[in-house]
């Protein structure tokens, strides 16, 4: 698992009419690369759709039930070594996710400054724009993934809001 994955809003990364073709809209950073404590949250995965799907599930719903929305999600990948090559460090930590078996795949990428943030944006943009290392999971697919994960006891259904359970056609247990 030499790649790192992160949820992105794909449209923010595409070419904009008011920018040159190689330029990246600043919204891509403010929407998709919002640091906290000069760190960004990523997930280790392989460059294979099946494995990216596991990570997609991990980031598809927040832990807070009131904030859960089941919808289409885009996940972009970069090689971990590329992040390290610009002076960023990787710190493994337990991920805050509903999916039990990917919790240990969480990585805090630390020591971001403005230049490194822009550098990561420049790593991501061509991959997203060419569609080579970006994966889209529609809401129907996310639903299927959740149903499977609940069936495999990888997700506890009690951690999901009633609205989400209803969308998954699962009865709330209360």
């Amino acid at each position, binding site marked *: 698992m030499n790649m790192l994955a992160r*949820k992105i*809003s*794909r*449209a923010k990364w595409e070419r904009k009419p008011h920018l040159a073709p190689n330029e990246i809209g600043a919204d891509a950073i403010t929407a998709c690369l919002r640091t906290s404590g000069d760190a960004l949250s990523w997930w280790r995965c392989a460059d294979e759709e099946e494995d990216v799907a596991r990570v997609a599930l991990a980031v598809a719903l927040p832990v807070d039930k*009131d904030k859960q*929305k089941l*919808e*289409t*999600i885009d996940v972009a990948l970069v090689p971990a070594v590329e992040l390290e090559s610009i002076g960023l460090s990787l710190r493994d930590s337990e991920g805050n996710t509903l999916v039990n078996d990917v919790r240990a795949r969480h990585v805090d990428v630390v020591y971001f400054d403005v230049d490194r943030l822009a550098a990561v944006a420049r790593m991501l943009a061509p991959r997203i724009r060419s569609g080579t290392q970006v994966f889209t999971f*529609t809401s129907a697919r996310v639903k299927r993934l959740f149903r499977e994960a609940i069936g495999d006891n990888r997700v506890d259904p009690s951690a999901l809001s009633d609205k989400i359970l209803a969308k998954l056609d699962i009865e709330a247990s209360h």
Partner: protein
Amino acid sequence: MTSSTVQPGESTETAASKRVPSGTETPGPIAASIVCDSTGRKSTRLRIRSASDELAAWSSQVLAWFVRSSQDEEPTSCRPQEADLVDELTRAATFASVGMSMVHSGSPSFAGAGFSERVTWVASRCHGIDNGRRRSDRNHEFASFKARLFSMLLDEPVEDCVAHPAEQLLSQAMGMNRSGAQDWLSRLLVETYASRPSLAASILRCVGRLDFGEVGGWGLHVADDALHHSVAEVREAAVRALEAWGDAQGVRILRQHQEKERWLRAYIQQVIVDLSSPAR
């Protein structure tokens, strides 16, 4: 007598001139029937069948005509009254499941005395309040709604899979006055489409998260419009909305759309497949 149905786009005057069989209701959201009272006097009864998606549009058509035909005023000066009449009828139809009945005496012409009385009664309530002040209050409410919505969306980007505080604001506005909130949102989208497309996309994302029952035909129309926007982010927001609502008409809209961006085209194709699948 032959059965007649009030069709969308058809003027109420034209519809009124059609004959309705006694005791039989016409199909459609507005049911028309001829009723006889104990003295044998005939009257036409109109009933809103349900609070369907088309209700606001139908009410607007019918009541706008009522106001113009029963009040000797210019159409422009009737606008606040029309809005209140629509509100009145919508509330009645929403909260009383059987809908609202309006009866007038005389021949099957909608300009009978009963209707005029009804319209005059509601309109008099509107006249009781200074129209200028009402307009000013509405403008103030709109400005306040706009400021709150923009502030929320600019403070915090809409993140995939995560609820946004603006959704609650939209739901509240819809709950208080659905057609009014839809009108406000349409105005805000028109305002932002050209100058602030990212903000327009954010508004659309929040609209797309409302239940289809709240947005209905208006939502489909908004999404259809947004699919023709030059900025992909706006078009993507429209696709997401149609995907979330999952309505068959939304699928038809997506099928008809010619998308130029490869990534968005692929997404649309997958959404069409997903929504067309029997096991969703």
